[in-house]
């Protein structure tokens, strides 16, 4: 079959603007006037002659200056730490948790500076995977917006002043019988919880309320209603044969996406003789990353999802003898019937999840899983997940207590309610009635600006802590750098304020581990040895006692009666984006410039609307619309997003921050005020009224639609049943027309002859395999590459000129249903067929992702056109780029069939026009010292992490052995949570990349042009019947 994929709506519609951009790929208005900053130049009296004089003088001065090299200093340590060898990185095991993602990590440090985050393979939760936010977290350490000292009444103060003041205020509150409230995000740390408990013992009026920006209260409460205990179970997607998700974006943002992505990929990979795949069915309103990976995806309006769950429950109950509930019809009831059958066929090996924050919908989901016997196989109630503990009801109650003047002191800990609460204005008013306001925020954020004291916290790379993401799964957090500023851990602040005897949190933590957690195991016989071992490994895991079947006691009738009934009219739904998520890292330029996997838009959020529905409403891309929910209205640009549900508008939260720092302030609009509070919980969808404004169109910066590869078979695809019959299904041999008839690509060669048999790879031959079946498009690799290779951030303006610098991009293609095969059935002629293939039959397209980096062609077209031989080929199969040789003709980029080369239009270091990562000394500390920072006017591109290859080779040479397979890895492959990318040496017969390369699914991108890339792809396999829905 041959589906037609298109890269964006502009391409599909073939608008004149798009055609112009496409034909003029390097079209741009050079902003030279702006950069020279002189309106004066056009009116000034400087003559040409004067200009030449200046120029001459300038050249002379420059050459004179160049003659005298500046004196450089070499300053060694006074006492060098034993573990540091200059030039050799040290890795420390730690863990990342920001109230949103949990990830067990290894921190790469060079001469005491953390420069890169890598996954910790010893953790059985994340197992070496990372995601974009974890990868970017190292940059947040060097954020110049961070507070450098505590604040008292917005003025810099010393810790002793702040401590004295806060301690007396706390005593006053306690003495007066007023509440001391700690409002924090989820704190899944056993030792932190102990500190909070001891603090509460000292100040008995203390109340600890957990508030997460994006609430999982529904999931917690739903489980409480079902099993009598407020908790979240652990999910095992890798044990599931059928996965049904109701708007749970478990691959990108839901609960523990790194862990779930890894588990999911295990069921999707067809490697090492594995011939079965899970079935994944998604019901959702927006196009999420998870939905785009589903085998079958069904669109429902947000208000219809709960009824769909109820309908599915009824079908399952009917077959398994459960009680049926009353429910409303949804447009996808036919599909639900089929899905129910599939679930029943995979009883005990299926999994149903829902992203809803409605406890009643979660009860129904639990009931379905219960009837299917999924507890103890794909869901484990005994192994509780500690990653979310938000309590919406308590937060709402807190506001009334604050208004009543019952709260004497409030302490904000990783909580920013004035930004992220829907009724933040009310909260602000209530806050003014609180006696003392303290914040642990690392910057003067939206909430901290109203606080009397700010006791800034460390970055996690400066902190000690422990985490227990799941019961029995511990992970230590250790500092990898001395605190950059005069900050302190919140735990330590609480210890000081509660006058606890321990000197610091570190000794408290060590003591707790040596005395309490040590006792949970038997293998290590001394507390010190246990502590050292845990610190080295990062993780400590103990088996949880075997699960007994949980008693499901949920009242399904009651739940079904309380769920939302399908509504009519326009509905608005709030979601989290893969990059920015809840907005805590909005000042991270890597995440802002990270293109959304689905829309490919960076530096903004927007109202996503289905194109056909937008046309009905009269909206066009970039139109600014106003969305009203109750008395809240938000204005923002329209993005035409295929595969959205009808009558649905989606907007991402996490944008529109005002007090986060120069990179994040004012980017996008804040969608949190659109969240509604219903039945004492946050509701992330609602009915809304939409109107067009008269404001000028707002341009969105998208990284796709700039580079077209249309009309060719870029992503190859097949179905599981076809692949089982034929290992080369969907991946037929590429044939080339020659004067002697059609020939196989490998039999035709313009380069090699008998005299010149082509290239020689005597030592290594590096290659990268990308399994499109495992790639979920999450983009961890994009940010990992940013960090590893000192890739510059260029900002929204430059991205709109298609000058983003990412060395690796993830192309996202939508399919349409008209193919060459079915065109005849539809009565289309040849010409009409091509026309129809272009047309938006894309109400619910399939989506594919394809990471594209330099393909390291052995017959590289870029190399032959470089006039200064700046790009050449190595004997190890790498396409090399010598930046200092490059004169910037850009011929290579023009001749690159994959469009992976990036040109430095400007000097991005020390340039105030690009105030992102490399303009201040702090931001420069994240740079990888082994990779040169490119200058203006040179071309750059993926080097296949040659610095890592060289390092790995040298380590092997020093040890007198060959490098082991997997020992050398690129940053992209290493960061991948699903191991979709495999790097290795083709010359090593045992290497994994070699095994994958000969697989029937493997193919080269644009094989017919015979550039012989070093990178290969593997066909995407969908687990569904050809042309059938479910």
């Amino acid at each position, binding site marked *: 079959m041959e589906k037609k994929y298109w890269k964006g709506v502009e391409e599909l519609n073939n608008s004149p603007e798009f055609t112009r951009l496409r034909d003029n790929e390097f079209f741009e208005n050079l902003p030279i006037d702006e950069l020279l900053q002189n309106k004066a130049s056009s009116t000034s009296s400087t003559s040409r002659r004067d200009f030449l004089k200046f120029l001459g003088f300038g050249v002379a001065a420059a050459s004179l200056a160049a003659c005298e090299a500046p004196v450089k200093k*070499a300053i060694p340590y006074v006492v060098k730490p034993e573990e540091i060898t200059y030039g050799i990185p040290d890795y420390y095991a730690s863990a990342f948790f920001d109230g949103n993602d949990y990830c067990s990590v290894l921190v790469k440090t060079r001469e005491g500076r953390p420069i890169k985050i890598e996954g910790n393979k010893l953790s059985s939760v994340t197992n070496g995977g990372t995601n974009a936010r974890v990868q970017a977290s190292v940059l947040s350490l060097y954020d110049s917006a961070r507070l450098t000292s505590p604040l008292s009444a917005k003025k810099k103060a010393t810790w002793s002043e702040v401590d004295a003041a806060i301690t007396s205020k706390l005593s006053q509150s306690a003495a007066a019988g007023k509440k001391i409230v700690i409002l924090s995000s989820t704190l899944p740390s056993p030792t932190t919880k102990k500190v909070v408990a001891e603090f509460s013992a000292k100040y008995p009026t203390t109340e600890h309320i957990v508030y997460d920006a994006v609430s999982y209260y529904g999931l917690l409460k739903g489980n409480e209603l079902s099993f009598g205990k407020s908790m979240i179970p652990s999910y095992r997607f890798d044990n599931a044969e059928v996965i049904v998700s109701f708007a749970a974006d478990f691959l990108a943002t839901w609960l523990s996406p790194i862990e779930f992505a890894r588990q999911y990929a295990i069921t999707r990979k067809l490697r090492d003789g594995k011939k079965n795949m899970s079935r994944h069915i998604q019901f959702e309103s927006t196009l999420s990353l998870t939905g785009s990976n589903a085998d079958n995806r069904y669109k429902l309006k947000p208000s219809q999802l709960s009824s769909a769950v109820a309908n599915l429950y009824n079908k399952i109950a009917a077959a398994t003898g459960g009680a049926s509930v009353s429910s409303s019809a949804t447009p996808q009831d036919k599909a639900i019937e089929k899905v129910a059958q599939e679930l029943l066929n995979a009883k005990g090996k299926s999994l149903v999840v829902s992203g809803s924050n409605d406890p009643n919908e979660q009860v129904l989901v639990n009931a379905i899983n219960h009837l299917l016997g999924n507890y103890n196989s794909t869901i484990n109630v005994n192994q509780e997940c500690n990653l979310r503990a938000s309590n919406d009801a308590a937060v709402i109650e807190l506001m009334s207590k604050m208004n009543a003047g019952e709260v004497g002191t409030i302490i904000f800990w990783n909580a920013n309610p004035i930004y992220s609460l829907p009724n933040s204005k009310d909260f602000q008013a209530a806050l003014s009635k609180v006696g003392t306001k303290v914040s642990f925020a690392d910057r003067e954020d939206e909430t901290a600006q109203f606080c009397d004291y700010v006791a800034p916290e460390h970055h996690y790379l400066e902190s000690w802590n422990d985490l227990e993401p799941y019961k029995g799964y511990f992970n230590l957090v250790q500092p990898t750098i001395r605190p950059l500023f005069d900050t302190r851990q919140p735990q330590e602040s609480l210890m000081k304020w509660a006058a606890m005897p321990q000197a610091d949190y570190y000794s408290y933590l060590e003591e707790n581990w040596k005395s309490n957690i040590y006792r949970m195991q038997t293998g290590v016989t001394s507390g010190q040895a246990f502590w050292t071992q845990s610190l080295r490994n990062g993780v400590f895991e103990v088996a949880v006692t075997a699960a007994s079947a949980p008693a499901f006691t949920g009242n399904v009738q009651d739940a079904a009666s309380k769920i939302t009934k399908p509504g009519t009219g326009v509905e608005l739904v709030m979601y989290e984006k893969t990059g920015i998520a809840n907005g805590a890292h909005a000042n991270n330029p890597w995440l802002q410039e990270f293109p959304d996997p689905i829309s490919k838009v960076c530096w903004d959020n927007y109202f996503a609307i289905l194109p056909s529905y937008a046309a009905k409403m009269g909206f066009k891309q970039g139109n600014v619309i106003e969305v009203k929910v109750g008395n809240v209205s938000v204005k923002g640009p329209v993005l035409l997003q295929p595969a959205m549900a009808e009558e649905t508008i989606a907007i991402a939260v996490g944008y529109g921050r005002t007090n986060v720092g120069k990179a994040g302030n004012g980017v996008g609009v804040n969608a949190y005020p659109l969240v509604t509070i219903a039945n004492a919980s946050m509701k992330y969808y609602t009915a809304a009224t939409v109107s067009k404004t008269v404001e000028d169109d707002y341009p969105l910066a998208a990284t796709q639609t700039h580079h077209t590869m249309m009309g060719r078979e870029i992503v190859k695809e097949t179905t599981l049943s076809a692949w089982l019959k034929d290992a080369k299904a969907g991946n037929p041999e590429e044939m080339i027309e020659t004067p002697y008839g059609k020939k196989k690509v490998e039999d035709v060669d313009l380069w090699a002859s008998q005299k010149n048999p082509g290239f020689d790879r005597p030592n290594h031959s590096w290659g990268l395999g990308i399994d499109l079946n495992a790639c979920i498009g999450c983009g961890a690799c994009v940010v990992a590459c940013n960090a590893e290779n000192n890739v510059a951030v260029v900002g929204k303006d430059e991205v709109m000129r298609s000058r983003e610098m990412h060395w690796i991009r993830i192309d996202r293609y939508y399919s349409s249903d008209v193919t060459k095969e079915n065109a005849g059935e539809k009565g289309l002629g040849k010409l009409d067929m091509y026309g129809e293939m272009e047309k938006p039959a894309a109400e619910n397209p399939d989506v594919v992702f394809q990471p594209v980096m330099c393909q390291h062609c052995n017959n590289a077209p870029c190399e032959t056109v470089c006039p200064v031989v700046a790009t050449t080929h190595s004997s190890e199969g790498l396409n090399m780029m010598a930046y200092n040789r490059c004169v910037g003709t850009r011929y290579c980029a023009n001749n690159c069939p994959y469009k992976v080369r990036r040109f430095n239009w400007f000097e991005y270091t020390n340039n105030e026009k690009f105030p992102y990562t490399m303009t201040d000394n702090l931001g420069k500390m994240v740079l990888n010292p082994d990779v040169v920072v490119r200058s203006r006017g040179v071309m750059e591109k993926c080097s296949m992490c040659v610095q890592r290859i060289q390092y790995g080779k040298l380590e092997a040479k020093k040890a007198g052995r060959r490098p082991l397979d997997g020992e050398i890895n690129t940053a992209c492959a290493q960061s991948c949570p699903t191991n979709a990318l495999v790097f290795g040496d083709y010359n090593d017969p045992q290497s994994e990349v070699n095994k994958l390369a000969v697989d029937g699914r493997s193919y080269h991108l644009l094989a017919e042009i015979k550039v012989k890339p070093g990178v290969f792809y593997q066909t995407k396999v969908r687990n569904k019947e050809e042309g059938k829905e479910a």
Partner: protein
Amino acid sequence: MSEMSKKILLPQTSKQSNMLRYVPRCLSFTLLAFILNVITLSPSIAQPNGEALFKQNCTSCHVVGDNKVVGPGLKNVHKKQSDEWLLTWIKNSQAFIKSGDPDAVKIYEEFNKIAMPAFALKDDEIKSIIAYIKTESDKAPVVAPAAAAAGSGATAEESKETSPLVYLLVLVLIIGLYSILNRVQKGLERVVRQRDGEAEPVVLKGKARTKSWIREHKKLIAILLIVGMVYGSVKGWDALAGIGISQGYQPDQPIKFSHKLHAGTNKIDCRYCHSGAEKAKHANIPSANVCMNCHKYIQSGPQYGTEEISKIYKAIDWDPAKGVYGMNQKPIQWVRIHNLPDLAYFNHAQHVKVGKVECQTCHGPVQEMEQVKQFSPLTMGWCINCHRNTEVKMEGNGYYTKLHTDLLKKYGPQAKLTVDKIGGLECARCHY
């Protein structure tokens, strides 16, 4: 007639004069050569054997002075003890102490029972050492040994190099000789003319003289111009090509650390201090705590006494009197000599550990440098040349085993497997 005769006459005169002009020049060169010979042949005084032996064996624990290092200061030790006593002590101090000699026991107790190792030296060798101590003791004034050491160093340097005064003298001599001979020649010419009855040539003055000279020396001027231009271009090109190359760069360092003393005289392995050279990209400048491994005991150097070593103590905040460290540490700001541009990646371990290249190959005879300078140009051409000529040390390294056999098959068993044959000239080996 007069005009014509002048034209014919003048060249003749110049020919004669050219021949005559050689006389003073030859004379002056001979003189110069003689003077230079005298200077270079000035006898070099043979160093006494005792000094070398002392430096080889004793300097790590003793100085010829009053200050204690590890062992006692040896100034006037020959006056304190007899030669026989010293001979016995040096040959085997432990046995001597055991024999119960009161002086020996006293010294042993005084120096915290740190035993002096036994030295297998012959009697005459020890005596030469004692003789050296004797001369040094008499030489060194009691106060400011550092200044004296520095002073002696300076005079030693002066005597080695020819002073500019000598050159000036030679120049004055040559000029004097030249002018005398010139006058003699002119007088002889006049005599010849008078004998032949020729008229005295008209002496032109001012501009006219210059013009006429120019007119008559067109070829010479052309040749000079061409030579000048060629010379200028070559020099100019060299100067431009030298921009950014700082071969010979020899900056003053914050501490007058002598590689000559440490690596040359004391033969400390380069990698003792530059310990990164075998492990990593950087050979690294040692941190002050590495200096303290020895300088905790060696508190005074032969050249600058305590002056330079005390700078280490200041940096690491060590009190030599009390033997304790303080908290007020300040790093030493060395001046970096070898500055590769950021665009070039160089790894010491690759060259030192894998390639088994000697440090001196690139850094020159550092063990002879009092003050280190950049020995090599560190240009890409220099790198490439070495990669073309140096054979890869494949033997015994498991990484190369297969590659070695493959390459020998390809290039023949006698082939020189140089670095360029395994991709050592590829851009991305050094530029990324």
